[in-house]
């Protein structure tokens, strides 16, 4: 019987992907797709997932070298027809419809957590992961160095608000990185899609969450936002962190189809597109809004709950052109000092506001 090459090798799929992604990235993505399909679909999956140890041992008994994970991933002969169908569909979606790989695989690692993703909720970006882990590290150091609480009165956890939580990655990332009891985190978002996803991610990552997390559907642009947020924490907030929408309307029109066709415009551009050109051409209105909210929640004042050495407002920005507007917004709303963090690519990525001078 003639062997159909398409049934036996990943090469055609690799070529298809390479047309969109280039050779190097195509190979990586196909490897991740193959690993995914092994784990989640078909009888081979059962063999490696549930009885992997037995299977390897059986191979040992027969004095066969046990396969490495990578070998198993790319051993095309071992894909079932269901797995082949999934792979072909995945590659077609990726190449023709520009569906992001993360939506195809259904998740993206973020620090210790695995964040489930589905369109149109914004996919966690590596730049966000970077500043969140850096922030967690400095908060953890602060937590370890805090003065011992008086006996019988344990020091209260930091009350942190994750505005624009989306998939919940920032809130859940902090909750998993910080030492137990260091923080109490609330994630809020205007989108019901996002809220549902954030809640399912909380369940999914329950095992690694050291700190309490809750999610609420709140529109941060509404007039009564400050009072609604105050009602959530009668004892007051210590910090706001956010990855707010910051893409300018002009930039939005030029985005890759991977982003524009699949991710919620509300997570990307701070205002409705029809008015954004006129009202917010530089994409900073949401950052400014957060600075105003922070003042309303009395975060800019010295002598509030937490130590003055902690940032009170941490916002992600879209590069150096937004650094000054973000700092200005913080200074205008009473923050004494600001700091800028760059990402690994050397781009200005987060602005931090402190209450102290």
């Amino acid at each position, binding site marked *: 019987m003639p062997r159909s090459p398409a049934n036996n090798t990943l090469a055609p799929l690799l070529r298809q992907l390479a047309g969109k992604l280039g050779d*190097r*990235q195509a190979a*990586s*993505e196909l490897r*991740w797709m193959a690993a995914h399909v092994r784990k989640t679909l078909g009888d081979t999956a059962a063999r490696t997932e549930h009885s992997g140890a037995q299977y390897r041992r059986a191979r*040992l008994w027969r*004095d066969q*070298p*046990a396969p*490495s*994970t*990578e*070998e198993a991933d*790319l*051993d*095309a002969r071992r894909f079932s027809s269901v797995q082949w169908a999934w792979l072909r569909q995945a590659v077609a979606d990726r190449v023709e419809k520009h569906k*992001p*790989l*993360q939506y195809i695989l259904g998740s*993206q*690692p*973020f*620090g210790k957590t695995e964040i489930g993703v589905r369109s149109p909720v*914004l*996919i966690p*970006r*590596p*730049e*966000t*992961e*970077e500043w969140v*882990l850096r922030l967690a590290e400095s908060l953890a150091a602060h937590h370890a160095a805090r003065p011992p609480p008086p006996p019988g009165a344990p020091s209260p956890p930091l009350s942190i608000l994750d505005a624009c939580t989306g998939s919940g990655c920032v809130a859940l990332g902090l909750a998993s990185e910080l030492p137990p009891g260091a923080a109490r985190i609330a994630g809020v978002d205007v989108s019901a899609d996002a809220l549902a996803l954030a809640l399912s991610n909380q369940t999914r990552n329950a095992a690694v969450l050291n700190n309490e997390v809750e999610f609420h559907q709140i529109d941060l642009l509404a007039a009564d936002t400050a009072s609604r947020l105050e009602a959530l924490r009668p004892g007051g907030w210590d910090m706001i962190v956010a*990855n707010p*929408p*910051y*893409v300018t309307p002009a*930039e939005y029109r030029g*985005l*890759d189809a*991977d*982003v524009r066709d*699949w*991710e919620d415009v509300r*997570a*990307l551009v701070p205002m409705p597109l029809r008015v954004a050109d006129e009202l917010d051409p530089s994409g900073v209105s949401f950052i400014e809004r957060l600075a105003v909210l922070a003042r309303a929640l009395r975060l800019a004042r010295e002598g509030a709950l937490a130590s003055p050495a902690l940032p009170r407002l941490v916002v*992600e*920005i*879209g*590069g150096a052109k937004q650094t000054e507007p973000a700092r200005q917004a913080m200074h205008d709303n009473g923050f004494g000092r600001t700091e800028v963090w760059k*990402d*690994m*690519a050397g*781009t200005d*990525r987060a602005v931090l506001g402190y209450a102290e001078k």
Partner: protein
Amino acid sequence: MIRALQLCARRQRWYATAVRARPTLPAGSELAGKSHLTAPIHDKLRVLQEKHGNLSQQLSGDLSVLGREELARLSKELSDTARVAEPYGRLLQLYADLVELQQLMGDEDAKLRVFAQEERELALAGAAECEREIIAALLPKDSAEDAGAIVEIRAGTGGDEAALFCGSLLRMYERFAQLRRWKLETIAMDSDGDKVSGAVVKVSGRGVFGVLMFESGVHRVQRIPATETMGRTHTSTATVAVLPQATDVHITVRESDLRIDVFRASGKGGQHVNTTDSAVRITHIPTGTVVENQQERSQIQNKEKAMQVLRARLYERERQKLANERRADRNRLIGSGDRSEKCRTYNYPQNRVTDHRVNFSLYNIEGVMQGTALQQVIDQLRIQHDLDELASMG
């Protein structure tokens, strides 16, 4: 009793003539059976012993002429040399005893012959013990040998066949690690089915580096590839580099010495793009060392893995620097161990694995490739290594 006294007298005479000009084996050593101590090593041991004698004489004399620091230095040297000189002194006694006992074993008196036989057994056991003590005292402790290892395998000349061989080597190490219950973790892998053009794996466990360190070098395979229709034997190579896994204690890397590059399609990053390109490249500026990783979907994880490899490389660099002096010494004695030379050949048609460094052949290629017989080859290398280290002492 008289015999015993004679024995003592001869022993003392022997001591007087112990230091000679040319590499020689001490009398009686040939009676001690298989020994790792060769003539040049014995010469070095004699020098050490003489030094020890001089030191103890110096320190038993008038100490007031020595300064405080001088005194401390000499005392330390005395105790250092004693660790070798004392067991060596005992060993020489035993050699001399063996010579005497050899004569006694030809004696007419049957009782004496039995006595000599028993004494000989004891002397042989004692000599072996002394030798172990001497070797242990001479060998410097390389702390890296306790560490885990980073193993890098790259296909060399020979196209697809080289990549297939590279894959076989990788599986050999995987199996070997499994059998010893070491933890094996893939750091980077460039493969297509059975063909592996390059792989980096991290092996963790106790004493891993001490075992795998001998694997560094060019491995050569001679076999008839499945694709060869004429039945010709092809020769291909793969290079293996084994680095000790550095811990934070071993080496500190300053953040300011690093340049980190990420390969983003667009300069904007953040919300503007949704790239899956998670590759990270780290350059250690002072040494120009560059490491790259794109294995994981998470950029942070790739960065961490790249840092592990970087640490291992920098650590190895440091270690090499320290070891170089010693190695130069040893090479003069035993010949160069050039890393570019092939270190081992896997000949399938002859079912043979030959390690060229120790000139050792094993006719069980399947066993070696399955990881079960690899230890036999490594044992030979270990012995040779310890002896080489010994030869470079002085």
